[in-house]
């Protein structure tokens, strides 16, 4: 099933007149793990905000599970289907206790309290934060906060999660925590994931990447062959992981190697 469909989508910011997105056509299937990369100002965050109707396209159409985001009556249902996690962990938690924070969205929806309990428990387990339910958010590390933010979204039982640079403000441990929880959710719960990131090592772990530059999609496909075109990536302001750079450098010096994205693979190919 098509989870997300964007048809000739454009977006122009009213205030500045800036055209943030130009003629975007994109289909994402249910259960896919899609990475979106691009330099600052390339339009990635604008695109993300169209997916749960924080913005409406100024041209074209966005369909979520077949529902048109232009139609007012669809908005609530779409926001339940598509959850969003943002960059700054400190701006996303509102309650004074972890479990209250996770329950917040459900209470707003008027879900009965017996059900809230069950869904909060399950969501906290899915992100491995069940032992922190009574903690105050300020006692948590950045990675833990992002996992709680994720739990708040999981409690809504979405079919798709959109993450906008969720690890940009985290340390390496926090990054790994968040990435591995997101991968589990995708693989085990079959949740569709749209993952926006500057961290190319994270992007390289997705099924498919969309590369954006100046409001357009300029490449799409599996990460390895796209990243191997280092000159193109650099031209649009992106870098590739050191392992890919090394593989390309070795290839230029005459070693016969395929497009490589991870350390295991490179080591295996060399020795």
């Amino acid at each position, binding site marked *: 099933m098509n989870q997300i469909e964007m048809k000739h989508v454009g977006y122009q910011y009213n205030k500045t007149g800036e055209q943030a997105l130009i003629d975007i056509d994109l289909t994402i299937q249910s259960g896919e793990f899609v990475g979106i990369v691009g*330099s*600052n*100002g390339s339009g990635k965050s604008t695109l993300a905000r169209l997916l749960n109707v924080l913005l409406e396209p100024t041209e074209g159409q966005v369909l979520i599970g077949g529902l048109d985001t232009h139609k007012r009556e669809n908005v609530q249902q779409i926001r339940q289907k598509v959850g969003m996690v943002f*960059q700054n962990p400190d701006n996303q938690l509102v309650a004074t206790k972890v479990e209250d924070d996770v329950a917040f969205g459900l209470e707003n929806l008027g879900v009965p309290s017996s059900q809230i309990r069950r869904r909060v428990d399950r969501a906290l387990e899915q992100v491995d934060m069940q032992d922190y339910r009574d903690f105050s958010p300020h006692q948590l*590390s*950045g990675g833990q906060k992002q996992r709680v933010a994720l739990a708040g979204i999981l409690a809504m039982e979405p079919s798709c999660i959109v993450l906008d640079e969720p690890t*940009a*403000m985290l*340390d*390496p*441990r*926090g990054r790994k925590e968040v990435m591995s929880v997101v991968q589990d959710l995708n693989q085990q719960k079959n949740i569709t994931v749209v993952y926006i990131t*500057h961290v*190319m*090592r994270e992007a390289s772990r997705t099924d498919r990447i969309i590369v954006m530059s100046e409001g357009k999609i300029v490449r799409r496909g599996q990460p390895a062959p796209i990243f191997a075109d280092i000159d193109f990536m650099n031209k649009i*302001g*992106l*870098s590739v*992981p*050191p*392992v890919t*750079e*090394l593989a390309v*450098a*070795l290839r*230029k*010096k*005459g*070693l016969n190697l395929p497009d490589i994205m991870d*350390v295991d693979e*490179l*080591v295996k190919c*060399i*020795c």
Partner: protein
Amino acid sequence: MHMLIELKNVSYIYEQEPPVTALEKINLNIEPGAFIGLIGHTGSGKTTLVQLLNGLIKPTSGQVIVDGKDIGENKKGLKDIRRRIGLVFQYPEHQLFEETVYRELAFGPKNLGLDKDEIDVRIREALNLIGMDFDKYSDRSPFNLSGGQQRKIALAGVLAMKPGVLILDEPFAGLDPRGRKQLTELLKRLHEQQNISFILISHRMDEISYLATRILALKEGHIVLDGSPAEIFSQPEKLKEIALDIPQLTEILFRLQKKGLEVRSDIFDIEQAADEIIDKLRSRNIC
């Protein structure tokens, strides 16, 4: 001008219930001209350490000595220390506030009591150092610049004070790859061409290994590793213990060593590493 910084038995305890010991009996010399990479997990004491270095907080016990003088001893000296040890905070662009780049950069020098001409010279120099054209940018609002440019302006504001030591706290956070690369090269150039010592706090091991001449790793308020990048990253188990990564390039070279290819592991440049691998493969006569 180069400066020598010494920490003698420095401890810092946050007075709260229960008290938190952020740093414990730190002894450390920072030699003039060094480029120090300060690494450690969140909460290891990195930020406390740099706040002590420029006198923002005072040690609970022990001494911070700059060019032979204890900075805790006189208030007047402290102002001078803060000028000479520049601190660029995390997300420094959030603290930009003036209407034009020119006025933003004039703010610090004006506070030093410099005259108009000298301020003008400093602003031109600072913009030149960060590679931004004076005529193009001086009248622009800092708020209409890109995030990467805003961060460079914040850095220029500190450079205009002519510091001897520059401390940067997670300067790469939130920058896109292009911005990160530009900033990395800028820091390298400043270190090579200006008489400035650097202390760089970052989680990004690829950048740290490329820039630093010496790495300090903190864990729970103690310095647990101190050495050149080659020395530090040759101990991957120790780094994992304190929850830090090694640069990906280093990891690859180690893994090749384990598989019996005798490559050097103290290389932090992609081209050089590729040459090394090809070289060793040839001498083994495979490939």
